[in-house]
């Protein structure tokens, strides 16, 4: 029986080749994109994990004011902590970019070379891969760094700069402006002595815990416990700063240091009270909190889960589209099916027969889609996004059994499940009912439509009759719009970042001090900034608590008086979904404390997650002097020694970073828009087409009655316009709401404002595009209507 029926399948496939070709294309496209994203994500996750493991990625890192002494390092080693010195110098490259210069590593965060060899002489350097690519550098090329010329001997990557962020708090990677370089110890020393560094040398140590019982806190506490004589620090700015902070108390300290006074407990207690609570540890970041480590895997993780879910939804939609065709086929063949039933063919045989074609189409689509996904335009192309942003070595491509299973097995399985559910019901009619060519009444068919005009009533009845196709059309519209809004939200967010960051930055320069002077430099407005943390969706992002007041012209914040009330930036309100009047809790990791504030107002400020607090209250809260500051804002460049500064941010840099966002996301935005547009077009075309097919008998009848082309179009096609228009008016805001709700999960690790609001014109534009597509499809389907002849009715009569 099945053998005979199988012949029909091939004939059916040939008869409707256009329809099944379009459906196959949808399945191919869906599987191709999903499997490509999945494969790319899994390769990046595993590849970067291997890269990290192979090169002994750090468990964390810290920075000290002065280098640790050898006995202190030995103490840590004895504890079971492996330490790698990673001191660096930031040096200007000829283009103006900053190269962070390191000595080559020996045990932790090893440099993995993509090509070339390590630096062996004092005029050789290994440069970080992304910097090389962006600057178009090749091995052997000369680079001028800090006035010295180096020959590039290798292209490398390190796990601690997988996201080559200049500062950990930076929200975007900008390899045009920043990269890392690795030289010999001699070359490093020479650079240090040349005084060409942009800032003082940074004393960074990376660590790995050899003892599994050790925690990051244990390591931190051990370093904090090391005695620290700040006077031995080399940094003159630091020493000057400490002296100023201690001020008059220095005399007493000097007195206490006098050996004639002895070193009893009372003297020690007095010393502790006078001396500021300071230890050598300047910064301590466990790997999990280091935004430079593991960024590539975190970035694609959302792709993996989103594509797994989206793939099932899209495949279910396509399967349902196929099911609609099968139902149409069954309706058209109902009398034949009835005859077969009466001849003893059972329902299972027919069910298998009708599911064969959906299974074949989806299986073929799955095979081709999976093959394409594993071709150069698939997984490896999708990985380009990672390669073009993160600094990771070339990852050897692996084919994962689960992605193969997803691409090859899931499409036919979903098709069989969806179709069996839909078709089973259809085939459960009695032989007699089918023999009479009966169609079950569509739900709602007997709706009383009152005194509505004939045309409107006719159209509504048609939609009710073709409810299945109409719902599929609506779901297709919604799914496509959801995909569009992923792209649109991405664009809107990036564009807001680009425009708002610049518009909200009223200062030209922001100087963050490491060692602030007593006196605020002329032309500068002081503020007090402290970096705290706040968790969102498992990611602990940095938030700046900024002490300021109404005299600061660079912020619009009306800072409330009092220690508990604050204003927060719009960026923070968007990212953390905070409303006015709510309480915001920030973590001070250094002091192991939490601070709770009531949000008095939300201020339009996009560049940073900022909590604005009254500067006097903040000084008091953190035990600082009443004139303390560590940030200065200015409308012009100020003559401040770079050694005193932690960083300088200019408005021009903010502008530059804004462009990076849009540029990075452009390809994803275009791809998503085109793919979703294609899905919508094909689903709409097929469903409107099947509605015409199913109405071909009625259309034929109308032609017999003398209906003209335009009138038939009005009855059978134009009615869909209201459905599509109404569907769009509902689906556009609904899809936007849905994606807005889940979008924060997509970018949970991205530290930037998340303004997803957009101009009403975008909605109007989308509506216009949908209606435009509808009119194109309508025009195409008129030809289908033209092909229906009065003979359809006559065939039935004969």
């Amino acid at each position, binding site marked *: 029986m099945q053998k005979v029926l199988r012949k029909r399948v091939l004939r059916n496939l040939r008869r409707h080749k256009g329809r099944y070709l379009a459906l196959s294309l949808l399945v191919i496209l869906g599987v191709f994109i999903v499997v490509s994203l999945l494969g790319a994500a899994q390769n990046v996750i595993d590849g970067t994990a291997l890269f990290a493991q192979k090169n002994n990625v750090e468990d964390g890192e810290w920075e000290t004011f002065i280098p640790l002494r050898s006995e202190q390092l030995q103490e840590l080693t004895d504890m079971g902590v492996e330490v790698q010195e990673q001191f660096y110098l930031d040096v200007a490259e000829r283009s103006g970019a900053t190269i962070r210069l390191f000595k080559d590593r020996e045990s932790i965060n090893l440099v993995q070379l993509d090509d070339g060899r390590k630096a062996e002489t004092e005029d050789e350097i290994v440069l970080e891969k992304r910097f090389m690519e962006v600057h178009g550098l090749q091995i052997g090329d000369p680079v001028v760094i800090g006035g010295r010329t180096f020959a590039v001997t290798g292209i490398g990557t390190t796990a601690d700069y997988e996201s080559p962020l200049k500062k950990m708090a930076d929200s975007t990677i900008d390899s045009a402006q920043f990269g890392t370089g690795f030289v010999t110890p001699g070359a490093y020393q020479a650079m240090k002595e040349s005084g060409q560094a942009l800032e003082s040398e940074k004393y960074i140590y990376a660590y790995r815990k050899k003892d599994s019982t050790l925690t990051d806190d244990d390591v931190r506490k051990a370093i904090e416990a090391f005695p620290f004589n700040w006077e031995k620090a080399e940094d003159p700015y630091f020493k000057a700063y400490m002296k100023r902070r201690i001020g008059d108390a220095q005399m007493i300290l000097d007195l206490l240091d006098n050996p004639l006074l002895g070193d009893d407990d009372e003297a020690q207690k007095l010393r502790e009270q006078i001396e500021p609570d300071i230890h050598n540890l300047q910064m301590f970041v466990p790997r999990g909190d280091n935004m430079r480590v593991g960024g590539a895997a975190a970035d694609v993780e959302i792709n993996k889960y989103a594509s797994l879910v989206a793939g099932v939804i899209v495949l279910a939609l396509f399967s349902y589209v196929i099911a609609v065709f099968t139902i149409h086929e069954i309706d058209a063949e109902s009398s034949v099916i009835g005859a077969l039933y009466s001849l003893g063919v059972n329902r299972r045989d027919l069910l298998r027969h009708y599911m064969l074609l959906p299974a074949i189409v989806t299986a073929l689509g799955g095979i081709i889609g999976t093959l394409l996904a594993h071709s150069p335009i698939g997984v490896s192309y999708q990985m380009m996004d990672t390669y073009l942003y993160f600094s990771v070595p070339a990852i050897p491509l692996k084919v994962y059994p689960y992605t193969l299973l997803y691409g090859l097995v899931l499409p036919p399985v979903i098709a069989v499940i969806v179709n069996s559910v839909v078709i089973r019901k259809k085939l459960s009619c009695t032989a007699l009912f089918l023999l009479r060519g009966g*169609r079950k*009444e*569509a739900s709602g*068919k*007997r709706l*009383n439509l009152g005194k509505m005009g*004939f*045309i409107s*009533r*006719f159209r509504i*009845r*048609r939609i*009710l*009759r073709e409810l299945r196709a109409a719902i599929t059309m609506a779901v297709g519209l919604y799914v496509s719009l959801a995909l569009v809004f992923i792209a649109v939200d991405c664009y809107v967010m990036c564009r807001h970042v680009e425009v708002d960051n610049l518009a909200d930055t009223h200062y030209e320069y922001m100087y963050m001090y490491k060692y602030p002077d007593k006196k605020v430099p002329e032309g500068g407005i002081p503020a007090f900034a402290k970096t705290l943390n706040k968790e969102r969706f498992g990611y602990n992002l940095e938030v700046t608590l900024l002490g300021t007041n109404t005299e600061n012209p660079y912020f619009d914040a009306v800072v409330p008086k009092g220690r508990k009330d604050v204003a927060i930036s719009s960026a923070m309100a968007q990212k953390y979904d905070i409303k006015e009047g709510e309480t915001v809790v920030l973590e001070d990791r250094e002091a192991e404390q939490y601070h709770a504030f009531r949000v008095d107002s939300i201020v339009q400020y996009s560049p940073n997650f900022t909590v604005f607090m009254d500067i006097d209250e903040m000084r008091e809260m953190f035990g600082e002097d009443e004139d303390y500051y560590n940030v200065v804002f200015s409308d012009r460049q100020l003559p401040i020694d770079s050694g005193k500064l932690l960083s300088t941010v200019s408005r021009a840099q903010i502008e530059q970073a804004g462009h990076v966002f849009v540029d990075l996301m452009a390809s994803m935005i275009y791809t998503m828009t085109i793919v979703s547009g294609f899905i919508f077009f094909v689903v709409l075309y097929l469903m409107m087409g099947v509605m015409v097919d199913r109405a071909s008998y*009625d259309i034929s*009848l*109308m*032609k*017999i*009655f*003398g*209906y*003209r*082309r335009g009138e038939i179009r009005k009855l059978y096609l134009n009615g869909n316009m209201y459905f599509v228009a109404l569907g769009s008016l509902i689906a556009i805001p609904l899809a936007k709401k849905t994606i807005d709700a889940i979008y924060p999960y997509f970018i949970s690790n991205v530290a930037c404002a998340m303004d997803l609001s957009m101009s009403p014109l975008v909605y109007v534009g989308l509506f216009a595009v949908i209606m435009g597509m509808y009119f194109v499809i309508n025009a195409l389907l008129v030809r289908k209507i033209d092909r229906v002849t*009065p*003979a359809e*009715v*006559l065939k*039935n*009569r*004969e």
Partner: protein
Amino acid sequence: MFLEVEDLVKFYGEGENRVKVLKGISTGVEKGEMCVIQGPSGSGKSTFLNCIGGLEVPDGGSIKVDGTEIAGMSLDKLSDYRRDKLGFIFQFYNLVPDLTVRENIEVCEFLSENPLQAEELMETLGIAGIGDKFPAQLSGGQQQRVAIARALIKNPVLLLCDEPTGALDSKTSKSILILLETINRKYGTTMMIVTHNNAIRKMVHRVIIIKDGEISECSQNEVLVPAAELTDL
């Protein structure tokens, strides 16, 4: 003559399978006449009716309806011809299943600038109380009455009926025939009825018998038997 057919030729198929279905039929029907077309299966009677209805394009000959030549008309013109002059009644009613009785009638009412009064027509056809029902809720006889109402609403000059009682029992058939007779009298509608039912021959003005694509007999009844008196339906 209201309907004049001259040397009508129609082929089906291609090449070796090409068959001459109508082999030069010539006949005519006067305005207001009821005419029955009979013949064995495959004789070409339905093809003949379809050619008159502009549903089949003849391969030769001429068909004039009310003085208008329809052979050789473009598809659009044929559409207008059907719209302005014709009504169709089918054996299996061919009602649109998801439209109510009233809406099925409106399908054709919509096409006419001067349609008949729908309520009056429904009253005449005995379907006045079922306007809001759907075809599936009706008996075969009721469905055929709705189909007749749909055909008549635009007040056609020529009504083409293809086995109008073919799917009905004798009692219902008789009531449908009485209706057709009433309509013919009331509206003066010319009717061409294809049927296998010999009894109908007695109630019509003209009888055409087609055999193997040719008219084998054409006769006129001097005395008509009212449909109500027909037996052996």
